[in-house]
């Protein structure tokens, strides 16, 4: 049947597959990629994507995420390793035979064709009959709510509409999976957020596998089932959005996803899952979760989320510190306070605006945090 009736079956498959990596639909195995034989853009990439999953590759520019996507689409060849799609190696299959849809960064709509012609192009090259093409094109346009725009040229559409046409074109030939290369990068903020939900809903509805590339963490958090955080050609962490945010495994992920306060120190004691860290310059000791350190004497960077710091209350066990207010920014629902804590001038605390906060810049605040909210990571 057509993709429009897949969601029910897909939804159940999705749950099954996500917990079963051996059933992976897309599999990157030991992928290396170098353009010049001197620098590796992607290093030993191993990645499994289940059928129906929405996986985002997130990372700063130059981290290898787009290269990875292009290898999957067939426009770049891996220097080493193999990519499997539906258990079959695809390195030798040219892009036009891969049956993978793609939404390009600047949409790549063909300017000399109308919206309808753009959408029928992939069906025409597959020699699908005229009436069927017409029907599929109309369905795809209706899906992105552009049913009446078929006869327009791309230049006559707004950025958001072009984006939807690009999306419809990537889906109209019922590809095995869809790749999206920063598809919302050119839109303004409001439209971007709106399109995030729309893409997410379309994904939920038709249950197609999506591999999405972005450098915008909030976009990744909003849309994805799982996120692969890229840096320096290596996947730093691959996990669901909540785990990425709450349990980052290294300091890059902690810094890249969400806001993050850091304190540097040396491990002085290890006790099972927790450890004690002596802060640099003698600012005191912090109890923290042992995540990315091994033994006594290791240097570490502590990571604390701003919203996990409480003010004007003391913790009976440990982790009580003083902070001097450097700057207060009024943001309506909360007040953002920049403090100097243990020598760190950029320590951020979010104070809920409950009407009782009366401190001024220069005041000293009592801060405390729970050891479970502090993660001792690499430096």
């Amino acid at each position, binding site marked *: 049947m057509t993709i429009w009736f897949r969601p029910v079956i897909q939804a159940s498959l999705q749950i099954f597959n996500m917990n079963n990596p051996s059933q992976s639909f897309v599999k990157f195995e030991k992928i290396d990629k170098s353009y010049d034989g001197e620098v590796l853009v992607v290093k030993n990439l191993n990645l499994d994507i289940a059928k129906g999953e929405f996986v985002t590759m997130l990372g700063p520019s130059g981290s290898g995420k787009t290269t990875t996507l292009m290898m999957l*689409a067939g426009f770049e060849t891996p220097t080493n390793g193999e990519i499997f799609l539906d258990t079959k190696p695809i390195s030798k299959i040219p892009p036009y035979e891969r049956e993978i849809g*793609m939404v390009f960064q600047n949409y790549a709509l063909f300017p000399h064709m109308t919206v309808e012609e753009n959408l029928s192009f992939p069906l025409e090259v597959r020699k699908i009959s005229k009436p069927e093409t017409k029907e599929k094109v109309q369905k795809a346009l209706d899906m992105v709510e552009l049913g009446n725009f078929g006869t327009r040229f791309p230049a006559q559409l707004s950025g958001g509409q072009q984006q939807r046409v690009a999306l419809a074109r990537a889906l109209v030939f019922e590809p095995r999976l869809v790749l999206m290369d920063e598809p919302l990068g050119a839109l303004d903020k409001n439209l971007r957020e709106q399109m995030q939900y729309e893409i997410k809903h379309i994904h939920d509805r038709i249950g197609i596998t999506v591999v999405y590339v972005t450098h915008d963490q909030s976009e990744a958090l909003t849309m994805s089932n799982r996120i692969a955080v890229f840096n320096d050609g290596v996947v730093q962490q691959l996990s669901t959005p909540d785990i990425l945010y709450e349990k980052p495994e290294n300091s890059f992920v902690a810094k890249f996803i969400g806001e993050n306060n850091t304190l540097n120190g040396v491990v002085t004691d290890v006790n099972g899952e927790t450890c004690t860290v002596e802060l640099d310059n003698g600012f005191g000791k912090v109890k923290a979760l042992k995540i990315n350190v091994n033994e006594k004497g290791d240097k570490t960077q502590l990571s604390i989320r701003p919203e996990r710091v409480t003010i004007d209350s003391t913790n009976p066990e440990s982790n009580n510190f003083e902070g001097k207010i450097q700057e207060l920014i009024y943001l309506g629902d909360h007040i953002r306070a920049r403090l100097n804590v243990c020598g760190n001038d950029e320590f951020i605390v979010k104070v809920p605006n409950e009407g009782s906060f009366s401190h001024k810049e220069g005041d000293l605040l009592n801060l405390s945090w729970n050891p479970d909210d502090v993660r001792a990571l690499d430096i």
Partner: protein
Amino acid sequence: MEVTISTAELLTTDGTPLKQSLRKAERRNKLRAFLLVFPLLLFIVVTFVMPIGDMLLRSVDDSQINSVFPNTFNEYKSWDKEADELPPEEVYKSLFFELANGDKRQIGKALTRMNYAKSGWKSLIKKTTREIKKIVKKGEEPVSYKDTFIKINKLWADPTYWYSFNQMVNDRSSIYYWNAIDRTFDEDGDVALQDEKRRMYINTWFRTFKVSIYVTIFCLILGFPVAHLLANLPLRYSNLLMIFVLLPFWTSLLVRTTAWIVMLQQNGVINGILVWLGVISDDGRIQMVYNEAGTLIAMTQILLPFMILPLYSVMRVIPKSHMRAAQNLGAKPAMAFWRVYLPQTIPGISAGGLLVFVLAIGYFITPELVGGKDGKLIGSWIAYHLRTTLNWGLCAALGGILLGIMLIFYWLYNKIVGIDNIKLG
């Protein structure tokens, strides 16, 4: 609900009408804009509009000869060619006095004009004028002017001379244009083919078209891949390649054309290499220059940059992602090129094509030098008449036809592709 439409004129805060106030405010800007373009406007009017206007006027102008023989031509028009073999007595009489009393210089000019219509006029009139002046000096009045003329020279009894007057008797005449396509006026003033030995323009026109079209096609075939390469190579390579494309612009046209002669002639470089390779025998050297082939080869090379540059400027802005997108959607590379890339280069193809064709159709130096006898284009005829025969009317008509053809092409282009699609850089 009742809708009231205000008919009152809009006023500014100060109470003056809005339109008037706007005009006043914009006047200074308009004046400044006009003054800025004025020098260029003046330059174009003086160096472009006026000469072309003058040329177009010249191509239909026959007033000089009409001011020399006004009465003769007037009487001539009443000659009934069906009834009488020769013109009536009055024609001879008018001509007699106009030759006897006319200004020598003006008659000289008119004679040149008459010779274009029929060769032989010049010597005939010169001889006759001498005799007429003798008769006038003696103070005799001829009984029959016709007989007197025929006595002076029996060619005056040849009606074909008289028929050629048909081409000149009007102030404004289309005869030059007809001449330019090997047509003339017959005895009744109707359009007819020229004598066989005077037909030379039609063939040249056809050759001009053929060569221009071939040159345009060759330029496209050769230029398209180069432009594509230029647009897609990394910058440092494409800059180097661009220098090779532009190099011809920095070399004298004459030098380039002469270089082609050196290359192509029978004892030239290419024939030499072919003989050395054994492809052709020493006495089977190919004639590649001083004929149409030479014109084609040299003009293609010289006009190639005019095709490459517009193509390049269009190709440069076609995003590379389009070819990828087409392949991603399932099109093989050839299909992707044909359906997605090529249609987007049409503004460049048509701009380059139009430019090369228009330049080729009026080209002169190269065909003149390498064209030999059967490789000359219409530009050579224009130059010939301009410098050698001084038949400026015919020059102007040939130029006018060229201009007309270009305008027609421009119009067609606008109809088919749309002039706002043109892209030169």
